[in-house]
């Protein structure tokens, strides 16, 4: 992979992550004005979950709750930098730069461990 394509790949990962998250957040945000944050676009009864509780996301997404849509968007946004680092590992490896593929892999490992282990 040449440096130009590598840059385009990383840039695209960031752009897609940002666009998907912005779309989800915007739909949830807009829908909150119609049915309220804890309401449902399918007309299900309003949930009583705390807005800061990100649990049980799939079930609440299935009911098209504005809160759940925005929460998923925020999770995608927070995951975008991780995806960017992961794609850089692949990019440096394909570019044949072993030193930087290794450096980036270490960064990814520290990043993942700090997300999942440090509590």
């Amino acid at each position: 992979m040449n440096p130009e394509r590598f840059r385009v790949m990383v840039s695209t990962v960031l752009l897609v992550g940002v666009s998907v998250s912005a779309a989800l957040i915007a739909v949830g945000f807009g829908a909150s004005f119609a049915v309220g944050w804890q309401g449902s676009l399918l007309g299900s009864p309003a949930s009583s979950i705390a807005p800061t509780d990100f649990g049980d996301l799939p079930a609440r997404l299935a009911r098209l709750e504005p809160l759940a849509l925005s929460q998923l968007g925020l999770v995608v946004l927070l995951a975008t930098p991780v995806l960017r680092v992961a794609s850089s590992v692949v990019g440096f490896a394909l570019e044949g730069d072993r030193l930087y593929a290794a450096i980036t892999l270490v960064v990814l490992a520290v990043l993942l461990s700090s997300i999942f282990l440090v509590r």
Partner: protein
Amino acid sequence: MIQGTPGTDLGIFLVSVGAGVIGSLAGVGGGILVIPALTTIFGVDIRLAVGASIVSVIATSSGAASAYVRDRITDMRIGMFLELATTTGAVCGAIVAAYVTASFLFLLLGLVVLLSAAMQVARLREEVPADEPSRLASALKLSASYPDRRLGREVPYSARRIPLGFAMMWFAGVVSGLLGIGSGVLKVLAMDGAMRLPMKVSSATSNFMIGVTAAASAGIYLSRGDVDPRIAAPVALGVLLGAITGARLLNRVSNRVVRMIFLPVLVAVGLEMIGRAAGLSV
């Protein structure tokens, strides 16, 4: 604020657009604008304001970095190399957080930041530094060039004083793990001040890095219940719009203008740190 009213939402959105523009140009996360605005103007709880600021940092970073990476202003090698320092530093910071007096650290950092602001004033006239690559810079491939559309030419650069820059970055990571503030400012200072990279490269590469630093602690804030979508949603949307706009501007302005935008941010962060040390929570 319990339930967002349209007026409040619009206000938060507009403040966030401003934070995104300034943050993307200065290479910082915009927390310095978002947190005080949310707490003082909109009466948001400080805990939720900090949660929203983590979202704002990642939105600034990812929103602008897409353009900066494509335009070759971000140096991805320097960024990844220094992320080794910031991520390990952040883990150390989180571990020692229980044993350190935050107020003393805030005071010390505030003074350091204000001192660097004075040094920045002395360099306001500098457009691009000129240096030959050192052996370490060659070995680590920390020399490159970026296209400066304002100057209309390719500007070569090479990282100087790499061990010092790396150490400062590690410290920036410790600080963000410990205090969750000021990591963008310290990153720009490490690259611009210690490593003598061009201001635009420093700011764009810092912008690229802060998202990763923030993502490392985002999980903690999420699980603690500090991210409230009712506040974080308008912040994220506003900051993204601002960051994308700011990224378009960077190509058109000179390095000196970027430094002039960075300088007030630096002073504000320094004063806020000293204010926090003095117990005035902003």
